[in-house]
């Protein structure tokens, strides 16, 4: 039986199981009627469904996770006299050839009789496995149903059983966040350790030359790439700084105007408009930066007699700043609104004008929150990818001139990992080292920022 059919059978049977459990509960209550059941009859039905569905689904998931590894191992065993003296690399090549033959995608030209035979064996075993799987799944389904049906009595605490299962599901779902974080840390850490075995940490953190292109031949000039990441960090810092120089004043001033000067109508009209800026996909900003802003900046620079690179840091930073404006604005807006009205009133009572109140009372009171918000904005700027991939350069220049092309951490991750890759070269591993660094830096920024913002909120609550 194939997979979808099996699922349909399980589904149909589960409906029947619900009905059976429901009826059995009524039946067991006898003449006294369903009032004497511990739980409402629906719960007996649901419990039957759960025990009918979970075991076969568990078996199916286990099969689809492990079957390929097991089957490949079995198939390779048939050609053991051939694989005995191969290196691990060659065996993994053989495995992928085998999979290609089995799936019928294509037959590698180098395939010999032994391999084809192994593929036949694989298919044979897989067919047996699938038959056995169907039988096992259906048997477990029927068995589970029968066990529950037999046990249904008026005193059975069906609701508590069902609720226990639901609550286990809820807890499992809520731990996914932890598993995600652990997954991120492990995946970048593992590859980074491999990288740092080949390239010393100090060279990575303090080296001044970044050219990760590995040589094709061993005797090529500059055969080993160099992995000094300082120019990459410098580029990231420069572009983020430009972005913040745009976003911080514009966002903050917009927030001040909206919260303290604008009337209700203006605010209701303008705020959603500015929030559109936050909803535009970053790839659109990237396109805008590369095709509209960069040429304008270059023409303008050239009319002043400056040489401007067509992938200048200025264009990418400027557009990234525009992207961050609504982010800075909404955080500042929240923070400014959280300042108690009493502080404002006190200041007005002393005769201060609105702007004096804002500058001398509100901003100092809201400063921690604003700083926290700015830190969150910085972490967003550092981690932003598409704008810089499309509008900033690829070559790492160590320069302080915003009119030249620089590269960033995210650009390097993308260029190192997109396309064909071998998973043991320092080139691809370097991307994970950069990813680790990016994760750690943004994490620290976020933790500090969230801490500051929370402390600040508590202060006025």
């Amino acid at each position, binding site marked *: 039986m194939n997979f979808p059919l099996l699922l349909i059978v399980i589904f149909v049977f589960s409906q029947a199981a619900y009905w059976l459990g429901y009826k059995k509960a009524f039946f067991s209550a006898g003449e006294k009627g369903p009032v004497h059941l511990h739980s409402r009859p629906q719960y007996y039905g649901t419990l039957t469904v759960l025990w009918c569905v979970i075991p076969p689904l568990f078996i199916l998931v286990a099969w689809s996770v492990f079957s390929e590894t097991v089957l490949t191992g079995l198939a390779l065993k048939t050609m053991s006299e051939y694989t005995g003296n191969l290196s691990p690399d060659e065996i993994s090549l053989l495995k992928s050839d085998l999979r290609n033959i089995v799936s019928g995608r294509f037959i590698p030209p180098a395939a010999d009789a032994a391999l084809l035979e192994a593929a036949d064996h694989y298919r044979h075993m897989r067919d047996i496995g699938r038959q056995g799987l169907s039988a096992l799944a259906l048997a477990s389904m029927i068995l589970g149903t029968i066990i529950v049906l037999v046990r249904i009595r008026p005193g059975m605490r069906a609701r508590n059983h069902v609720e226990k299962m639901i609550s286990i599901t809820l807890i499992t779902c809520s731990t996914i966040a932890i598993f995600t974080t652990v997954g991120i840390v492990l995946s*970048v850490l593992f590859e980074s350790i491999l990288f740092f075995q080949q390239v010393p940490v100090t060279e990575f953190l303090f080296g001044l030359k970044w050219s990760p292109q590995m040589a094709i031949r061993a005797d090529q000039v500059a055969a080993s790439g160099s992995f000094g990441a300082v120019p990459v960090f410098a580029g990231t810092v420069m572009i983020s700084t430009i972005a913040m120089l745009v976003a911080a004043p514009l966002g903050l001033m917009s927030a001040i*105007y909206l919260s303290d000067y604008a009337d209700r109508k203006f605010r209701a009209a303008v705020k959603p408009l500015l929030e559109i800026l936050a909803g535009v996909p*970053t*790839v659109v900003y990237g*396109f805008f930066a590369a095709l509209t802003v960069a040429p304008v900046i270059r023409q303008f620079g050239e009319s002043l007699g400056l040489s401007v690179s067509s992938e200048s840091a200025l264009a990418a930073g400027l557009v990234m700043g525009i992207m961050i404006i609504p982010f800075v*604005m909404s955080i500042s807006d929240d923070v400014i609104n959280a300042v108690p009205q009493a502080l404002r009133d006190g200041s007005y009572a002393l005769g201060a004008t609105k702007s004096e109140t804002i500058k001398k009372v509100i901003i100092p009171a809201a400063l921690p929150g604003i700083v926290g918000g700015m830190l969150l904005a910085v972490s967003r700027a550092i981690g932003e*990818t*598409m704008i810089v991939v499309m509008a900033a350069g690829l070559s790492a220049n160590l320069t302080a001139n915003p009119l030249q092309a620089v590269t960033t951490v995210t650009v390097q991750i*993308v260029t190192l990992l997109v396309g064909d890759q071998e998973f043991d070269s320092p080139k691809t591993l370097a991307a994970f080292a950069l*990813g680790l660094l990016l994760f750690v830096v943004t994490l620290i920024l976020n933790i500090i920022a969230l801490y500051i913002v929370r402390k600040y909120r508590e202060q006025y609550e």
Partner: protein
Amino acid sequence: MQDVEPSAPSSVRTIDIINRRLNKRYRAEKRFKRLGLAAILSSLLFLGLLFTSIVSQGYSAFVQTYILLDIHFSRDAFDVSNLAGADYNGLIRKSLQSLFPEVRDRQEKRMLNGLVSSGAPFQIQKMVMSDTSMIGSTRSVWVPADDDVDMLMKGRIDRSAPEAERRLKDVQLGWIDGLRGDLRLKKKFNRIFFTSGDSREPELAGILGATMGSMYTLIVTLLLSFPVGVASAIYLEEFAPRNKWVDLIEVNINNLAAVPSIVFGLLGLAVFLNFFGLPRSAPLVGGLVLTLMTLPTIIIASRVSIQSVPPSIREAALGVGASKMQTVFHHVMPLAIPGMLTGTIIGMARALGESAPLLMIGMVAFIVDPPGGILEPATVLPVQIYLWADSPERAFVERTSAAIIVLLAFLMVMNAAAVFLRSRFERRW
């Protein structure tokens, strides 16, 4: 107390000092207010610039130049048992030749044939294979023109530029003007753009493949992230005890919401592709990565929505003997679901526009055929935009902008749905 300037105390009163400074202070006040307004206006200006630049570059891609050719389907050109093998290119070439019989030179002939898109033979092939009765007759067919002709018709190629710098040579301009004079050149609605996959030829490239890819990816994301997100929100709000473990979960969710999206791509590459061996470029993997990315958004929105249900509802349910689980699922959930859906739609909109993590898991491949399932290689709309933006042809700029317009339209619809849900079902307690 010290004496302060004893001479002429009556002439300088405090009120005078204040009045003297008052104008200055009012001016500062006005300046500050104008500064705030300027900040808002310049942000709005950027927004306007962004949209006008994209719309002005992209609107023209919704029409496409077609050439009317009289094609003679002569009987000896076809072998009925092998229709696919006929020389369709030759038919088009002959038809062009009959329009411009004076062209004799080999090189000029090639330039003449270059006016018609290289996809035209396939169009003719499809026509013949769907209706074999046209063999032996002569039909007038609109075929797509090459992208250079298209660009010229849309005024994006400068006729006055020196010939060497132009993609179209002077003879070709002459032929185009001739065709135009005969009404054989027309701009029609660009169906190809909406009904075909990616192509190296701008005039044949479409967004159907990317849209399908986006759809499959979003379906996977929605099916996984909505139940899981709502379940964790319910647990954290309604059942979780206050302890270290739950605090850890909450800190994790807040931090994941601020992790750069590209890091999720690294996770997908290392875990889903290399560890679990799932296929590269597949919408399934894209959906998994985007699920992890949007989960924090959905969880946070759902929690806010659950919090806004007043405790009296819960107490009433508990009071008539409902269990905790029944209270939550029968009474709290129905009231909180609109808010949860709003949060989910916003999360989905963000997932639809996301491209960086998908680059990592190989959804950047050049894929011509629209995907047929969640395990087939696919690309998504934002990545298609990224790929086209990299192409050197002038015509791709226009198509990139058009794809952006389509993407923004999708996003607007989704956000409008969220706003509608919020205004329709929001309850103030």
